[in-house]
């Protein structure tokens, strides 16, 4: 069985640990992290406000990209280390995506032949725990569009990690 884990940084290590403990037998663990380009775009939109002024310096743009890539590598590295530590003997593959997380993950799933994808349905801010918005928009999109089974783990959200 090939199982994909959506590692977004909040509790990714725990997600891997729980997937390995509950789903099995797993032949390949596919770790994926998507760099959300939304905040990066915000910075450039904010700059646009200064009509005719300077642009963001190249070294700052490079630093922004590098920090995101380093963060992604760190998240996936921690998750892979956790899998090894728990004694997982199968294949571990890591993938960094760029764009809107929900869409990129679904597109990626279509190409990876994963049997299942696991994620924390992180709730968006200001929502009711009940009803159609009980899970975040990323999880909702993946549930609706993923070409494989979807495993939602009612896990520790960031509010409980404090």
């Amino acid at each position, binding site marked *: 069985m090939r199982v994909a884990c959506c590692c977004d*940084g909040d509790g990714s290590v725990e997600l891997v640990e729980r997937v390995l403990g509950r789903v099995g037998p797993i032949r390949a663990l596919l770790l994926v992290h998507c760099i959300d*380009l*939304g*905040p*990066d*775009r*915000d*910075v450039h*939109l*904010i*700059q*646009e*406000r*200064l*009509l*005719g*002024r*300077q*642009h*963001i*310096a190249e070294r*700052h*743009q490079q*630093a*922004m990209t*590098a*920090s*995101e890539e*380093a*963060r992604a590598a*760190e998240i996936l590295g921690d998750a892979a280390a956790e899998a090894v530590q728990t004694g997982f003997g199968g294949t571990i593959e890591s993938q960094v995506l760029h764009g*809107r997380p929900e869409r990129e993950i679904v597109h990626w799933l279509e190409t990876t032949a994963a049997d299942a994808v696991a994620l924390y349905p992180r709730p968006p*801010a200001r929502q009711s725990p009940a009803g159609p918005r009980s899970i975040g928009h990323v999880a909702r999109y993946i549930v609706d569009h993923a070409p494989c089974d979807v495993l939602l783990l009612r896990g520790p959200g*960031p*509010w409980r*990690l*404090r």
Partner: protein
Amino acid sequence: MALLLVLFRPRQLSEAIPALAGAALFVLVGAVSPRHAGQALLSHWNLFLFFLGLMTIAAVADTAGVFDWLAQKAALLSRGSRRRLLLNVFVLGTVMTAFLSNDATTLILTPIVFTLATRFGLPPRPYVFSCAFVANTASFLLPVSNPINVLLLDRFPIPLSSYFVHLLPVSVLAIAINLVVFLILFRREVRGNFRLARMDDVAAGKARPIFFRLVCAWLLATAGIYVLAAARQWPVGLVAAMSGTGLIAAAWLAGTLSWHNLAKEISWSLFGFVAGMLILVQGLEDAGITKALARLLELGGHSASGVAIASVATAAVGANVINNLPASLVLESAIGHTGAGSQTTLLAFGTLVGADLGPNLTVVGSLSTMLWLLILRRRDLEVSALEYLRVGAMVTPIMLLCSAAVLWLTSR
């Protein structure tokens, strides 16, 4: 037409081209006489020098790693608390805006804070938005905090004491409101702590410690001279240009000066854009259009409360429809045509507050953004700017209303 092209920028056309083309057309058809056009440009030499000096100061200080160092200090002082980091970003943004203008905060501090937040594993939006908002909110703390202030105060010279009496309380209140609303809006994102250990990974930006210290000392001295210049009503453009020249000399002595890189950091098209806009506004003034616009500013009557509300609202709307720089150029001319008499100072202050705070409402403070957002939505693309609009809609009207009220109270 020139303004529409400036706002929509088809094919990424530089703003300077339509502005200068429109200005040339005005002169060619006789809407503005060459003498008037020349006068319009020469009378704003202080603004041009200010822009040039400011961009040079920011570029050299950024190369020296001053802002990276300040942002790291802000992170260290937060002692791992997300909420305290937001507060520190606000304080740093306020200080940077006060002395180096809103441009420096938006263009330099924002990407640095984004990088720091990402490395700490924090959601960057609260911190990035803080930079963007405080760049406007704190931009009337001092007469040099926003080029628009320089523009308006050049035309309507106001003593620094009067500036502080009227605008310091407004500014402090606006910053406080902004901070409180952000702490409430982003309460979930800024809850908890982060690992400061990751600080080691962040470049310290102090490869040349002597140059770094020299630039820091120079910036402090410049800040003091700015205040002195504002108090004595010396042209702040001259101070900025001299300070920028001094920093270039320091960089040359330290062997870090690259004319090519420095030239890249300066937006030369801005000068063309402002020059074109100045001639276009002169044309509008000669045609009596700004006189008609003055009626808008007189809608509030002659009472202090009416003048305060009308000027703040007009400038804020103008800033959101055509961007605050062109709006301020038009309003600067319109104020001269009002029959406000003794209320001219209040009108100038109200315009300054509206033009500085107003852009917080929309992402670029212009009609083009809104239309652009609509186009993106039709294409089903992510519109992160909608998030900005949501935040802006919550914080800006409160700030504008309270600012107008305080402006009225200090003018009674």
